[in-house]
């Protein structure tokens, strides 16, 4: 059995009387993609925000690499090896692709007191940036302004910035959103490549992609886990078929 890098235990989040996430437990293993699917409002966004540290849970724990990080802020978790991409592209539009990645990599070697040193000369972050951008397929557009990239390339940059911090766990929120067929293929290939060495949580709506790439699928309905199993088992699960897949065979 693979190493478990991220574990959520009985995560619950209430907003007043509404239960957005209801006692959700899941585990992310190194070398695998764990997909979370569900209709809109099922609580996926809230769940991923709790795992990343942007929202505090009402109850439950989050464990990263064996340590309880429930009280940790998002930056602290990120420094400990948790990377996150957003559904809405969250990049630095005015900077070049290279600078986007370099700044992300800088988070691991901030050295803010070295005010006289030019950041561009920082070998550590520059190398990590070229590396991450290359892996994400953006090696030949390093100098382009991020705001001028195509939608697909921006989503690639989103992933590149995660990689630049050399995380062990990746939380990916709808990385395929708005992508055409060719771009989706490229992104799936990237994810398959990334699987080795990382634990990936994938929130997605594209069912074909999810079933193609995930080792494990958790189905959420109304904030609670309806089923959590291998893709084949989930596909055959009658409850899931009724609630979500709408009769897909």
């Amino acid at each position, binding site marked *: 059995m693979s190493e478990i890098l991220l574990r959520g235990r009985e995560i619950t989040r209430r907003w007043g009387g509404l239960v957005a996430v209801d006692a959700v437990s899941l585990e992310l293993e190194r070398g695998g993609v764990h997909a979370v699917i569900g209709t809109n409002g099922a609580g996926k966004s809230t769940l991923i925000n709790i795992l990343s540290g942007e929202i505090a849970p009402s109850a439950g724990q989050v464990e990263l690499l064996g340590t309880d990080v429930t009280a940790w802020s998002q930056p602290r978790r990120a420094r400990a090896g948790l990377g996150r991409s957003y559904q809405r592209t*969250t990049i630095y539009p005015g900077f070049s692709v290279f600078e986007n990645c370099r700044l992300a990599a800088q*988070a*691991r070697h901030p050295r803010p007191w070295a005010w006289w040193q030019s*950041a561009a000369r920082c070998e550590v972050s520059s190398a990590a940036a070229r590396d991450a951008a290359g892996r994400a397929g953006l090696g030949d557009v390093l100098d382009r302004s991020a705001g001028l990239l195509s939608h697909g390339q921006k989503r690639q940059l989103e992933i590149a910035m995660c990689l630049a911090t050399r995380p062990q766990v990746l939380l990916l929120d709808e990385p395929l959103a708005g992508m055409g067929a060719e771009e989706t293929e490229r992104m799936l290939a990237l994810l398959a490549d990334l699987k080795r060495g990382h634990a990936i949580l994938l929130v997605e709506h594209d069912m074909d992609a999810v079933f193609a790439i995930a080792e494990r699928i958790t189905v959420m309905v109304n904030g609670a886990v309806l089923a959590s199993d291998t893709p084949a088992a989930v596909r055959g699960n009658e409850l899931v078929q009724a609630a979500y897949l709408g009769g897909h065979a």
Partner: protein
Amino acid sequence: MWSGRTLFVAGAFALLAGYPLVAGEYGIDLVTKIMVYAVFALSLELLVGTTGLVCFGQAALFGIGAYAAVRLSPAYEAANLLWLLPASIVAATLYALFMGALSLRTKGVYFIMVTLAFAQMAYYVVHDTPLGGGTDGIYLNVKPALVLAGKPLIDLDRPLVYYAFTWICLALVFAFLAVLLRSRFGRALAGIKANEQRMRATGFSTYPYKLAAFAISGAIAGLAGFLFAVKDGFVNPELLSWHLSGAVLIMIILGGLGHLRGALIGAFAFTLLQEFFKSEAVFGAFSKHWLLGLGLTIIASVALLPRGLVGVPAQWRARLVGRRSGGRS
């Protein structure tokens, strides 16, 4: 190697250095004042233009630096510049830390209003309490002198000397900020302005960076306040008023946000505009209502020059390109 911008800045400083050769007393006094405002504007540019923190209370930091310079000086002899200058800067920095620590808990519009209110706090302390010395202001009887090993080195009473002293301070602050903005710290500030959420997601704890930006900005504003107080030998509570906070914001917007040279350009443009509207030679009796012209100019410049004066060359170029290619201009 030397980009257009660097040439522009170098040229500006060279011009400023040479100006006293052709200027009269009034000109030297005016440009000294403008240079002090330029230092002030640079302090705000670090907060607003670089880090994206719209502070509407910068005058408090300026005024505290100014008042510290006067208050800490002995009554009838010259203080030593070597400790008075740092002390004034420290006073402003301390208040900046206090203001920043509390204001940074808020965001967006709240932040703007909270910084304004903290500046008002300082204003009222100076205006109403004995600490400030009263609404009429207080005088600096003897200007500080630079004394090394018992020997007085500079006489700040002479306008030319003071001009040079201010020029040096402005050049040092500009150079410091230019280096700082290229550094890892400076890039982090730029990242916070561009997308703070992404900064946090990659692992930057953004609060300490923002607070540090506040402190540095406060120090520079305090330096500007010191320069202002020592220049005229007089301070009054209006140095902490929100009108001055508004004025310095306008300077950097007018000049162009996000560019250090914008602060320089804005300080010049704004002060010269003010002098223009105040001038009786041009407006006669109506010059009494110079605020009207200023107000209209502010509205027009924000509406028509979205990127400030710094952006004008680019705007013209875009227009020319549009016309040449036969498209709509």
